[in-house]
């Protein structure tokens, strides 16, 4: 473990900025503070790259070992570990800690979070022109708090702390949707809130169960400890809970908690509503980061701590992933609301993540994590693209658009880039994740069902092409319509938001290893080793 | 009777107290109520100093009295500010006029 303070700065500089925003007198100044703060946070998070110096490893096994350590959780960076609450007394005392740190799993997500939040903050710049533009100060304060919450979730290595950050992130989101949202914002916000809260209640149950089912003297909230301590693992494996086997039951509860966030098939209906009603930047964050927390939770908590249950549930989880892929794509095809379409496409894309995780092979984890990041880039881009025309047309009916590529050539080209990235065109980010997951699923040796599932998942490729191209045709191609003829092309600000995401999408697609894989493969292999070693 | 003791002071303070209460209860002028309150506070001050002088011999009574003086000053300042607003709002200084919250 390497101690350091940079991560704390990354997590809490948005909070400081939120406090500054509270006392900043004018709206314009508040906006500047928020943008500068998110920008600084992003730059700070770039400083984390030095630990994963990509030029030093990638090919060389020894270098990889140096960077990622010998086993799961043995090499963490920028760690802060402070006792927060002491439970019990004397030798048997266990502690709730403020324990944050970085490994290959959280690092890409932290950078993604700061990056997307920064761009979303830029995207909020025109808040004066929104229908609900009052209280810009409150908006930015909540926005910055939200960033702290999200970063905290990705960095926390103490389950309790994780839970706290999880809740911290929830409330600002509720208000951001509920106050600055569209016509049905209350419905959407409450739906989001209740769904997520239900999930976190389940997580709370598991949190307590994990604590109390550990053998006395070993009780801890430390996530790394829970995953690697043989005594705790043994106890979790053997325990029963009200006549049920402990591990599968906890796994299911935890899975539902995370599944709501991902979202997985029967728990997904909050997502289209929340997306449609949320303002554009919030949709970006929702799709780009919040959805990733579910996947992150699975990879950080469910699977390392309960690998046996993961195997037990693999079949069902893979089916859920498939349903997500196919069902999400079909639903997306049925949409006439532009934003709803993108929302359902998110469901479809996250299905690949679930499938990749469910098969529990290193390749599958790689694919899933790549898809997480790739979708974290492409879906905010798509949402912002929708937002750009919504700002101009004030509606989102796909069938009422047409010929926008002629009206707005630069925007049209960027839109094509973004949607093709989402479609999974090779050379752009969406392809790698989907391909890795498909190939990994197909070649997973331990599951009899893996091959047919890969075949079914591959049909999603066709459906995705179908609905995205159909949408592009209806919105961007065709004759120019008179009512939209006067639309200005994308402004400098809009370009500044879209172009970085486009560049990253290209970079991820062309150089997946240099831009992402080598920062996380080490940790992902360690997690896969945990699966193997549990026996 | 000639040896002045604690009781003398206390009786005087009691009288002062009762006068203050009466003033507060009957005067139909808000400032009058304030004056009554000052009387009550002075009674308390006398009591404290007397106890300090004749019983404990410590400084606590004097300190408390000192605080009472400070509080009285503060109270007066706030009260007058309130009354000025009250007057501005209702056009009168009669405390009976301010019964809007009456159930």
């Amino acid at each position, binding site marked *: 473990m390497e101690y350091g303070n940079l991560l704390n700065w990354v997590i809490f500089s948005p909070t400081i900025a939120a406090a500054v925003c509270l006392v900043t007198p004018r709206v314009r100044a508040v906006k500047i503070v928020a943008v500068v703060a998110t920008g600084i946070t992003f730059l700070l998070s770039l400083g984390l790259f030095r630990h994963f110096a990509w030029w030093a490893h990638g*090919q060389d096994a020894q270098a990889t070992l140096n960077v990622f350590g010998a086993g799961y959780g043995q090499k963490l960076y920028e760690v802060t570990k402070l006792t927060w609450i002491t439970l019990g007394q004397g030798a048997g005392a266990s502690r709730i800690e403020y324990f944050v740190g970085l490994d290959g799993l959280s690092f890409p997500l932290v950078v993604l979070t700061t990056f997307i939040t920064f761009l979303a903050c830029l995207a909020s710049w025109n808040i004066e022109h929104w229908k609900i533009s009052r209280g810009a100060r409150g908006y930015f304060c909540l926005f910055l708090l939200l960033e702290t919450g999200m970063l905290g979730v990705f960095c926390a290595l103490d389950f309790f702390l994780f839970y706290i950050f999880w809740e911290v992130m929830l409330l600002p989101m509720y208000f951001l949707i509920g106050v600055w949202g569209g016509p049905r914002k209350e419905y959407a916000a409450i*739906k989001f809130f209740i769904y997520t809260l239900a999930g976190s209640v389940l997580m709370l149950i598991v949190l307590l169960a994990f604590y109390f089912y550990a053998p006395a003297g070993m009780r801890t909230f430390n996530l790394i400890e829970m995953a690697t301590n043989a005594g705790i693992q043994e106890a979790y494996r053997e325990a029963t809970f009200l006549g049920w086997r402990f591990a599968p039951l906890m796994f299911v509860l935890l899975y539902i908690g995370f599944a709501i966030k991902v979202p997985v098939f*029967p728990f*997904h*209906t*909050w997502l289209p509503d929340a997306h449609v009603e949320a303002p554009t930047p919030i949709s970006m964050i929702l799709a780009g980061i919040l959805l990733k927390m579910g996947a992150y939770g699975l990879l950080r908590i469910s699977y390392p701590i309960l690998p046996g249950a993961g195997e037990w549930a693999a079949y069902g989880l893979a089916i859920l992933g498939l349903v997500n892929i196919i*069902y999400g794509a*079909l*639903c997306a*095809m*049925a949409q006439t609301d532009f934003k709803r379409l993108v929302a359902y496409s998110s469901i479809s894309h996250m299905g690949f993540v679930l499938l990749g995780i469910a098969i529990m092979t*290193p*390749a599958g984890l*790689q694919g899933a994590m790549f898809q997480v990041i790739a979708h974290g880039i492409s879906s905010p881009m798509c949402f912002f693209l929708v937002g750009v025309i919504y700002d101009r047309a004030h509606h989102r009916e796909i069938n009422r658009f047409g*010929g926008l*590529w*002629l009206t707005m050539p630069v925007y049209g080209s960027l839109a094509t880039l973004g949607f*093709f990235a989402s479609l999974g*065109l*090779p*050379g752009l980010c969406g392809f*790698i994740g989907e*391909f890795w997951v*498909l*190939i*990994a*699923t*197909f*070649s997973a040796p331990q599951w009899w069902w893996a*091959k047919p599932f*890969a*075949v079914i998942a*591959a*049909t999603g*490729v*066709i*459906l995705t*092409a*179908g609905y995205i*191209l159909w949408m592009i*045709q209806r919105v961007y*191609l*065709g*004759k*120019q319509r008179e009512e939209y003829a006067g639309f200005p092309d994308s402004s400098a600000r809009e370009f500044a938001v879209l172009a970085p995401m486009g560049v990253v999408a290209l970079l991820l697609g062309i150089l*997946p*290893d240099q831009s992402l*894989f080598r920062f996380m493969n080490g940790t992902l292999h360690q997690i896969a080793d945990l699966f193997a070693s549990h026996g | 009777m000639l040896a002045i003791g604690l009781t003398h002071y206390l009786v005087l303070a009691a009288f002062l107290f009762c006068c203050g209460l009466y003033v*507060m*209860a*009957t*005067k*139909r002028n808000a400032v009058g109520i304030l004056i009554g309150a000052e009387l009550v506070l002075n009674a308390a001050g006398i009591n404290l100093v007397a106890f300090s002088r004749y019983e404990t011999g410590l400084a606590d009574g004097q300190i408390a009295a000192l605080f009472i003086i400070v509080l009285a000053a503060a109270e007066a300042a706030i009260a007058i500010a309130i009354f000025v607003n009250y007057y501005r709002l209702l056009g009168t200084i009669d*405390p*009976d006029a*301010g*019964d809007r*919250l*009456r*159930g």
Partner: protein
Amino acid sequence: MSQLEVLLVIGVLIPLASFVLLAFVGARLGKPAAGWVAVLAIAASTVLATMALLQWHGMTPDQRLAAHSAPLVWAHLGAVPITFGVNLDSLTLIMFFMVTFVSTCIFVFSVGYMAGHSDEIDGVSKFHRFFAYLSLFCFSMLLLVIADSLLLLFIAWELVGLCSYLLIGYYFHKKSASNAAIKAFVTNRVGDFGFIIGLGMVFAYLGDLSLAGAAQAFRDGYAQQSALFTQHLLGVSLATWMGMLLFCGAIGKSAQFPLHVWLPDAMEGPTPVSALIHAATMVAAGVYLTARIFVLLTPEAQLFVAVIGCITLSIAALVAIVQTDIKRVLAYSTISQLGYMILGMGVGAWIAALFHLLTHAFFKALMFLGSGQVIEGCHHEQDMRKMGGLCRKMPVTCWTFLVGVLAIAGAGIPAAHFGLGGYFSKDEILAVAWHRVYGAAHGGHVGTWERGNVGTEPDTRVVLASYAQHDPGEQVVHPGHLNPEPRTLNPLLFWIPVLIAYVTPFYMMRCWWLTFMGRPRDEHVYAHAHESKLMYLPLVVLAAGTLFASYYLFRPMVAAAAPQPFLTWAYDGEAAEAAHAQGALIDHGAHRALVPIVGFAFVAGFLAAWLLYRRGLTLAERLAQTLRPLHTLLVHKFYFDELYGLVLVGGTMLVKAICYAFDKYVIDGLVNLSARVTERVSRFSGVVLDQGAVDGAVNAVGRGTWELGGLVRRPQVGRVRNYILFATGGVAVLVLWLVLA
């Protein structure tokens, strides 16, 4: 990287640079300049390709082997490294040369064509975009050609698909164009679906996505009888499945049955695009893919390939007979010729199929450009029924087009060993098929040659042959497809292509005659017809290429790259000698047998077309009347579009509607229902329980309190003074109580 590889890689990257340049500053460059930038870029690539070709030509086999360098690791899938490199062999080089050369011709043509064409849509100029897309296409296509890994090939594969999508939809203000673009992309994706699964199988069973590595693993797997060969699904071995699935990609891209429906619609794109992408290069990529994965195809998979090719070539040729749109005739003829190539692959005519690919690229590009010239000259009239007699107005176009028609018809003088490109290449395919059906069964298996001393190629992918690498006296392992036995093929796979070989000259001559000969049928069209100088230059170059380059340049290059076992099925001239030198099987009988069967097919076809159309359309219309049901069937293209529209598109639309309804009413309904129920329960507990029972009691207390409050309220007059008085009274009472106590 070796010098050769560097040349090729730079050749690939130049068009990419041109794309980037045009994408960012193309609009500022303006109308002709943007086009010339693209031309310059592709011309530079052509020069590099020529240099590479010459260098390759002068190299010894050892030098060629040394020119290979280790591929670069791109990423890891699991723990397996995925490597990308340049697949350096003569097929790559000749394909590279063909693509750049044809592209250059077409780019030059496009500058003239697009300048004349209205490229402004609603006042927005898209001239530079056209050339940007074309450059991107060239980059992708060249990448596809040099790819040494199935994954890199797939990536380039998708990118050419993207360019095809963008260029078909170039006139996207037209609904039909954007529909065609989507159809092309989605249909290709259906093929890619199979391709991806095939890739999955390759990775799962062979553990390597590079062409050489996969082939090596395939051979090893066969030797050890791995799961790929022993496990069966639906009675077909997994190895066969793998081959068929990989071939699915080719079915999509090369517009083979049943995914051929997109190519005719793709003619919505500008004509140079049709020439470059949908005739010469991209659609041939499917054949190229099949050639590259050939070593992974089992005999059953080869049969599948052959059957698909056979069905395709016949369907397309028949439909081509009744088409009236000049570009659609060419499109169907393209599908048909692609069918020939695929058939060739299927029957083991590896060299012949690729040879046909190269010659076809030249003459089909030539004909498409000619049709573009015609369309441009006739002010966007594409209907041949309104043309006629254009020869006088555009002689160069007319005669160069005729060269193309002769080439595709396979015109040549059999005895003199002279002919145009199609004569050699198509006949060679048929000859191999003939051998597979009727050839003399003799021994002389390929099995006797040894690895390393065979051919001129470095032995990277030539691995299957070494099945037979054992001690001479041992029983030869016979996987079958290594040494395809004569008399093993169904005769239909020979006779149907032969029949279609008669149809091809007919519809091509019909097309040429209706357009250029006879009397002008539409005075208006005829009056305006004209020819553009800039645009006929490429026509002449391509016609020259068709006349001279094919046999002497393409054939040896392709032959040198052939995976060894299949040399046995190569015939004719030098290749035969080369094969002979390698101890391979030669059957001179096949070629001799073919002369009476198809040697004069082109004469018959031309004659029939001339007889039918020499007096215009009247005779043909009368014939159509007589054969009404057949004619209708052909005009509707065997109703494939209607069928797919109904079953696939309609089915998907239905399923999506059901899915969304399920989402909206069932799942969301359940969510809302649970919310409603919770609300109801709370209301029940609130209204009935709480207000009735609990609240009843509470209310009784409350009412009592209220009444009491009413009493107590009296003194509450809201006057401060009175409160003080009451408080004082209270205190007084307390004090008095103390006193009295």
